[in-house]
């Protein structure tokens, strides 16, 4: 008998410990596991070290609730129409959190190193500028085989990757429809993988699509049935962004206001069924 992987949202979020390195799936306004992110703040998680190539609402909301210590990312902002991630900016400018600015590709390199269990990854391209001088996770070394100097990026091994998918079975075999962003890589790099999913489908049906599986179940630690679990970000083939909710969030200035906003999602976030 296999261990049961399906947990409710509270149980799954409680797997995250204060201070953990947390890789968050999706990209900017798309397929971000927001129900899980909101639950992290309800459980008052703190000192999280966030990892993502390009984030927006997830990082902004966690910064608003003082849950973050560092952000390793290449880009943190909403897209043009929704403007800047102001809670994130404020937190950095006040010195509450530290940005480890990457070049997106160096986040990918750091995760590739983790996936291969090597301490660093050589990165072509990053060979000039102040990012190299100001950050201790980049180092320029001499190519030991001769040739040009080469920049290394230090591996980032996420304690947990949390990824929102459209469908998986109860063992965690998961399919991502449309862009996968860095999620497949994160699932290989992280120590533990937590999936939140729009749908849990029967094993037999998933098996018919076995060649399309992006994340095999044996890599997955826990599954949360979380319909609309990425809202207000979009999920391909399921729903578009919730523009009203995003716009309303962007007007929230104080921690209290953001807390109320998160509270307004409580019923929806806890709505998934147990399998």
């Amino acid at each position, binding site marked *: 008998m296999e261990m049961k992987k399906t947990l409710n949202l509270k149980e799954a979020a409680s797997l995250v410990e204060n201070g953990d390195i947390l890789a968050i799936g999706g990209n900017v306004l798309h397929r971000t596991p927001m129900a899980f992110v909101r639950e992290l703040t309800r459980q008052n998680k703190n000192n999280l070290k966030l990892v993502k190539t390009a984030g927006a609402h997830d990082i902004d909301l966690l910064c608003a609730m003082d849950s973050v210590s560092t952000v390793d990312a290449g880009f943190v902002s909403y897209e043009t129409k929704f403007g800047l991630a102001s809670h994130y900016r404020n937190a950095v400018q006040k010195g509450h959190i530290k940005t480890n600015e990457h070049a997106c590709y160096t986040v990918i390199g750091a995760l590739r190193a983790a996936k291969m269990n090597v301490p660093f990854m050589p990165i072509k391209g990053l060979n000039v500028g102040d990012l190299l001088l100001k950050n201790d996770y980049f180092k320029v070394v001499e190519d030991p085989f001769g040739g040009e100097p080469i920049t290394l990026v230090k591996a980032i091994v996420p304690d947990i990757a949390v990824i929102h998918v459209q469908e998986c079975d109860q063992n965690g075999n998961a399919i991502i429809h449309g*862009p996968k962003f860095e999620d497949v890589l994160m699932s290989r790099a992280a120590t533990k993988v937590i999936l939140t999913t729009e749908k849990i489908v029967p094993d037999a049906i998933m098996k018919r699509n076995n060649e399309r599986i992006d994340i095999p179940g044996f890599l997955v630690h826990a599954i949360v049935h979380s319909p609309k679990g990425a809202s207000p970000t979009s999920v391909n083939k399921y729903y578009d962004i919730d523009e009203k909710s995003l716009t309303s969030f962007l007007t929230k200035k104080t921690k209290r206001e953001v807390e109320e906003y998160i509270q307004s999602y409580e019923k929806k976030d806890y709505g998934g069924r147990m399998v």
Partner: protein
Amino acid sequence: MNKSYRTSDLMTCAIANLLYDGETVFHGVSSHLPMVAMHLAKQLHAPNLVHLNIPGGVNPSSVMSASYSSAGADLVDSSEAYYPLEEVFDLSMRGKLDVAFLGGIQFDINGNINASVIGDYHKPKVRLPGGAGSAVLIPTAKKAIIWRTKHDRRTFVEKVDFITTRGNLWKIVTPLCIFEYRYGKLHLDSIHPTSSLEEVKENTAFELLYDEVKYTLPPTEKQLQVLKKIDPDDLRSLEF
């Protein structure tokens, strides 16, 4: 002057004119203007241009649904193949990405680009969104094109606060002019017909280098006509 076009139209057409047939071209998030320009070029003089993007849709047949995001699933839905961001980066590292479109907040005459911070890196006065892929793409893409919808002395500065990157920068397209980066310096390449040398001078904090004053080609009737068709919701003007 008979002005049948807006600054966003002019910039879109000027950018389209910089793209050649058959080139591999990438844009990232918040990049509606270059995305539309790529499709304009594809409809007219560059049908074999290869459109690459973050979600990974190679040559999406339309960019009309990309209303609030230039990194959404719609670009994959109408594409001919899936080739995601990490592969686009790898492609650029191998020297096979012809053009990358990138942003930035401050630029100086030496071609330095700042997309990171105003003030000190560790204790910034203003934390900017970050350079995204710039720091690896600008040094490796054959040509990097920057577009910026603001042209003032806080944008074109004497010295950037922070060097996010520099490298194979080719052109910077602004609402007033186009700069070209050659021999390690930004040169005034052409002034838009809607602007003037005085206006560019007034709004640029560094010395303008130029051999002769040239003007950017205005949009053609044909270009404006095609723009209406491929970008009916005017996504190219989102940043204005």
